[in-house]
């Protein structure tokens, strides 16, 4: 009974399954959604994430000294700023029911391009927008492949992933240090608040990206179209929404975010390396799912994804604080948490029906 509602999240556009898309599920869902479900239900997964976050903070705070300090929380944001940006971009794609596997390699490509261009003497003022643009262009290419040529997002972004990673290797196999004065001074800017709280350039950029994404998703026509496509592409098309443009644009948004993420990672590590970001796309997807966005699209929030990233970051922090646990426990715990959230989502979806 349940399997019919779980198509691969990849291809609502595949011509073969038109009857399915046009069926009762996608067309009827938003209506029932509005009339039967109270607003609080939409927030349930996000509230779940918030509870987990609070629990982790409480457990950490009670187990370790200095855990609930401004320094730890500040570092949480500083160390995960690039992942926040990636998760924000990924949220847009997943909300439409797609997926973007290319972000990890785009991070590496944008980082190593920045390092290589700066090394050959380009001014930082040119390099910074240029490397973000690299992400945008890759996103645009993916969007065109997905929309115009009707290649499933999974495969199109997989191709983009190989492409970006291959280009990284072409640029350089070695790690390139970044010594450009302007870039280093931008990267090392920080603002201290009191004894322990501090923010860096990358945190500021990440928060600005979150704010812009929040505005775009909840207060613009583009954002509403994103939700509408996730709820049912056919219905969105029949409503006269600009489905084509929006579907391409979500990949552009995700690519741009990956470009920014690469820049932040380059600031974080002061270098560019072609092997950065291997598996980072999975972290981003995990953060989005833990943050309450449903992979079939249509439900989820940018702020939820930010919470998801913080949960992932806190797992790492707790394992560091514990000291005796080996680093591979991080992966096992993230996998377990992912499972819990996915089952939670599943229960919510079943109950909604």
């Amino acid at each position, binding site marked *: 009974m349940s*399997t019919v509602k779980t*198509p691969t999240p990849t291809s609502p556009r595949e011509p073969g399954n038109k009857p399915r898309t046009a069926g009762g599920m996608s067309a009827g869902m938003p209506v029932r959604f509005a009339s039967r479900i109270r607003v609080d239900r939409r927030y349930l997964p996000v509230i779940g994430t918030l509870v987990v976050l609070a629990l982790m903070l409480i457990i950490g705070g009670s187990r370790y000294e200095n855990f609930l300090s401004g320094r730890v929380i500040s570092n949480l944001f500083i160390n995960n700023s690039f992942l926040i940006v990636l998760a924000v971009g990924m949220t847009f794609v997943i909300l439409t029911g797609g997926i973007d596997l290319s972000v990890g390699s785009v991070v590496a490509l944008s980082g190593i391009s920045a390092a290589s261009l700066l090394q050959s003497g380009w001014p930082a003022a040119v390099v910074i927008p240029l490397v973000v643009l690299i992400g945008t262009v890759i996103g645009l290419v993916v969007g065109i492949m997905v929309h115009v040529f009707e290649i499933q997002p999974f495969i199109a972004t*997989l191709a983009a992933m190989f*492409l970006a990673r*291959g280009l990284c290797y072409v640029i350089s196999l070695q790690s390139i240090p970044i010594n450009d004065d302007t870039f280093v001074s931008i990267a090392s800017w920080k603002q201290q608040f009191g004894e322990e709280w501090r923010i860096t350039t990358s945190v500021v950029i990440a928060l600005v990206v979150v704010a812009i994404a929040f505005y775009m998703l909840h207060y613009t026509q583009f954002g509403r179209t994103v939700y509408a496509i996730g709820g049912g592409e056919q219905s969105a098309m029949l409503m006269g929404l600009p489905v084509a443009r929006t579907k391409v644009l979500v990949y552009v948004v995700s690519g741009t975010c990956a470009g920014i993420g690469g820049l932040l990672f380059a600031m974080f590590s002061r270098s560019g390396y072609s092997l950065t970001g291997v598996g980072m796309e999975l972290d981003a997807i995990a953060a989005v799912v833990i943050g309450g966005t449903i992979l079939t699209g249509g439900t989820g929030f940018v702020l939820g994804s930010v919470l998801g990233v913080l949960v992932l970051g806190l797992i790492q922090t707790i394992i560091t604080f514990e000291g005796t646990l080996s680093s591979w426990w991080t992966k096992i715990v993230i*996998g*377990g948490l992912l499972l819990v959230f996915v089952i939670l989502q599943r229960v919510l979806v079943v109950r909604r029906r």
Partner: protein
Amino acid sequence: MSTAAPATPTWQRVTQHRLFWPVVALVALFVANTIANPGFLSLRLQDGHLFGALINLLRGGSPLLLIALGMTLVIATRGIDLSVGAVVAISGAVALSFIASSSDPSSVTTVLVAIGIALALSLVLGVWNGFLVSVVGIQPIIATLVLMTAGRGVAMLITGGQITTVNSAPFKTLGSGFWLGLPVAVFVAGGVFALVAFLTRRTALGMLIESVGINPEASRLAGVKSRSIIWTVYAVCGLFAGLGGLIISSNVMAADANNAGLFIELDAILAVVIGGTSLSGGKFSLAGTLVGVLIIQTLTVTVTMLGISPSVTPLFKAIVVIAVCLAQSPKIRDAVAARRRRAARTSQAAEVAA
């Protein structure tokens, strides 16, 4: 497609076969290799074993073929299995840790028990994936993402974070041994391929799998046990991934929890898609998967042969994926078909006028 043409010539039937472009790509790769290295297609007999680039190609491709076979079945039910790489790592880690901890690493019994344990565990992992997808009803991509993320951690746990190396002649046979002049791994992969082909194409199983992929609910109403079928394909996929993992670890005689089978899930999915199996399920082609695996493996070999740094391989893979996907994309096919129809109509009109 070309119903407008009066009679479909044989060459046109050939070009319209869905495996035409993948096979052309494979032949092109072979030609490129032979030009770069005239000895590419040659085989020589040494110590009763066949040697040559082609044999290495087949041997290197066997684990990928095993994994891609399982993946084909999963994708045919409209699913996907991202966890095969992690299963590869776990299976290798379990087998090698068991052999390393045993008192007699080179006894055949030890090796057989190790292989048995590893395969049983892989089957359990596959069953777990199948349970999440078919019973709990989680989307396949995320259900298998759980094991993909946690699995490498588990493999690290088994090996204690070290790269376990062992010295065991019987286990080495699986990956680098020869039998009747051919690598043992090729026999394993070939045997599994034949078995799967027989079970799916000579019994109703293949059709049932495809019907579940087209519409699980309708299949269930028609009396197909869609839940058991979905569960089974994930279990089988896990088992095959475990077998692939054993061959990979036997090749290097080391269990590396971090790097064994890294990205092999992507290569397997790629091979399946290049072979013409649609990610939206409902139809699959085992022969296509075989061609896809050979393309991927040849691509890897080609890059090395042409003297390009092996790290550029992803770039070539990207180009091949994009080219094959574009060639298969409905838009391009329609455009080509439309032009062919127009051409046919013009020639007909010309004949009439004459």
